[in-house]
């Protein structure tokens, strides 16, 4: 049985609606990417050097990044040699298999949030400007509340105009309390207050917003380190999760972002937002293989429930769904 079919069986066994959401959210991405892969396969009968060159370009255009693409192509070439694949039919499943393999890097990943059994869990969101931190927090709060957790939000973006109001609106939507101070106050002080309040009210999860900052602003990164420090002083082992929010449209700079934010705040996971556009989010592969930071959630739309846990198999399935259907049709014939 081909890898994709196995994948499909594995997924359809689990949660239909989530898979649908992935398919739907990624439809724009998929249409572009897979139709190109199909096109490629159709044009080339044989798997030769030229085929690989075209494939390489396809992956580069998905923002996968140079080194990762080279790595993947090398591995594919080996695989093709090993299995003695001559024609391009069936190469799709080999490609997606390799993509998942690169992503997993040989280890089973736990994509779940590190929520404490008892006591307070603190989740800190960091990232550059305009990636969707506040929106993600709103969605995350709704998600955790639906799971039966009590949630509180800390309005740590005291810099950008209207940021606090934005979080308050999301708090109302999710029905959770927002701890806030006035604009321009020290974000570390907001965190301190919020942790106190969260402890007093015995909430399960405190999600902390921070102001967007470009990773090369030394002073702002220092400020973030301070916020991190204050949180870890007040709650042992906190922050239990530091989620770096990345915009799927971002190119190679996302790697630098991941590296710098990891250095400053010990990032534990990534939220990849705006994946419902035509951006392919291929940089995820590069970040995973170079920095070993897993993607924990993806943003697939503007609705409250459009934040979904990231599953590399579903992600790749989403990318290749059209290819799979075609492959099935071929075997039916």
């Amino acid at each position, binding site marked *: 049985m081909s890898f994709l079919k196995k994948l499909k069986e594995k997924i359809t066994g689990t949660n239909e609606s989530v898979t649908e959401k992935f398919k739907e959210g990624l439809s724009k991405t998929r249409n572009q990417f897979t139709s190109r892969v199909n096109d490629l396969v159709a044009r080339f009968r044989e798997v030769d050097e030229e085929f690989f060159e075209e494939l390489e370009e396809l992956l580069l255009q998905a923002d996968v990044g140079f080194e990762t693409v080279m790595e993947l192509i090398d591995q594919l070439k080996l695989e093709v040699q090993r299995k003695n694949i001559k024609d391009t039919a069936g190469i799709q499943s080999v490609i997606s298999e390799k993509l998942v393999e690169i992503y997993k890097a040989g280890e089973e990943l736990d994509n779940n949030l590190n929520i404490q059994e008892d006591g307070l869990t603190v989740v800190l969101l960091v990232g550059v400007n305009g990636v969707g931190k506040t929106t993600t927090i709103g969605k995350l709060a709704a998600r955790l509340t639906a799971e039966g957790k009590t949630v509180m939000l800390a309005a740590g973006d005291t810099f950008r*105009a209207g940021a606090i*109001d934005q979080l308050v609106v999301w708090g109302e939507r999710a029905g959770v309390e927002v701890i806030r101070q006035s604009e321009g106050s020290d974000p570390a002080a907001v965190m301190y207050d919020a942790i106190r309040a969260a402890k007093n009210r015995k909430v399960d999860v405190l999600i902390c917003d921070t102001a967007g900052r470009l990773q090369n602003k030394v002073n702002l990164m220092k400020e973030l380190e301070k916020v991190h420090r204050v949180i870890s002083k007040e709650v042992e082992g906190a922050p239990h999760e530091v989620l770096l929010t990345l915009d799927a449209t971002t190119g190679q700079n996302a790697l630098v972002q991941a590296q710098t934010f990891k250095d400053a705040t010990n990032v534990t996971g990534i939220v990849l937002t705006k994946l419902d556009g035509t951006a392919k989010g291929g940089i995820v592969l590069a970040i995973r293989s170079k920095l070993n930071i897993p993607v924990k959630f993806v943003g697939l739309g503007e609705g409250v429930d459009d934040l979904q846990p990231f599953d590399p198999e579903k992600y790749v399935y989403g990318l290749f769904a059209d290819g799979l259907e075609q492959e099935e049709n071929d075997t039916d014939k």
Partner: protein
Amino acid sequence: MAFEGLAQRLQGTIQKITGKGKISEADVKEMMREVRFALIEADVNLKVVKEFVKTVSERAIGQDVMKSLTPGQQVVKIVKDELTNLMGGEQNPIQFSRKPPTVIMMVGLQGAGKTTTTGKLATVLRKRHNKNPLLVAADVYRPAAIQQLETLGKQLTVPVFALGTDVSPVEIVRQALEEAEKEHHDVVIIDTAGRLHVDEELMQELKDIRELSKPEEVFLVVDAMTGQDAVNVAQSFDETVGVTGIVLTKLDGDTRGGAALSIRSVTGKPIKFVGMGEKMDALEPFHPERMASRILGMGDVMSLIEKAQENVDEEKVKELELKFRTQSFTLDDFLDQLQQVKKMGPLEELLKMMPGAGKIKGLENAKVDEGQMGRVEAVIHSMTKQERITPDIINANRRKRIAKGSGTSIQDVNRLLKQFEDMKKMVKQMTGMQQKGKKKMKMPGFDSFFK
């Protein structure tokens, strides 16, 4: 994780070519491979890269290798010139309507920075064009987007027209135009909601706003960090709403900004402004040449020079020059120098802007020790006037006193005095060298600021 610039990438290939009289086709092919890599790493769209490489190859093949340049440098120069050409063209800032009010529409993806840019643009219009703008809050979707614009309006004392989130954006714009006429605003800036270019419903809304308000300018606001997808975004927005200019935001980050080239070559529309910071006056005109250097990873020398010019007092420079020449350079001047450098911003930032700085051995990961600078300042501050002018009088007792007064150790004081001596020696050599026209010098005394 600094990406290699084009110049470094070309090193290997260049070595093979040096000594040849002409650049052969094979050489060019090899070098163009590197150019391709460099551009892709800078996020230039692959299709754009291919086209570009083709043009450059044609220009490079068969060119004589000039004596003054190495072949590699020449290729870099051709690449840079072509890039600059592509991004250049007419530098028309803002088109104003002959019949006011001039309407400017801001469009783009979510999180590109439309609202912030709207505020910055209002500042530019008022300060440089002497206009009286009205800002229109037409983003009824994102929570608190209206509050954000209103807060900015308050900060800048620019009026904001808002009708809450229950009125349709088209209706908001209609009423805003009436208001503008009544209140004699000569410019109206419409801040629309961020939207995906594939969201047909919301793109239709933009079309409707456009038809109603007949804008003179439609600015597409694009995040400079955008990857390969930039072409799709720009193309869709241009096809549906007809973009007249581009604003590139978050360029104060460390992205190469290849999106600029992609968008420019796909839409053919000029890049009118770049966002260079979070403050409301951080909107600057676009410089094609600087952008070209940046995309190629060649360092932004012009920005560095400008930054220095902005912060360095001309008078003081002249004074200093005289002191150098007459060798009457004192510790006070040394302190002055330190403070001038500090004013330019964090040293690490400055280093990043210097071409090749990332390549110097040991410097690629250099953390600038700003604390050390603080100690030096403290030491000098603890000296008497006389001591600063004639450091020779600083004996053991004085050293002890200075160390105590500045909260440092005697070693720190010794180190500074030694540095100052070295610097003086160096200055002597430099002034000597100037006549000979040699140019081998090193910033003296600044080594110790690197850990």
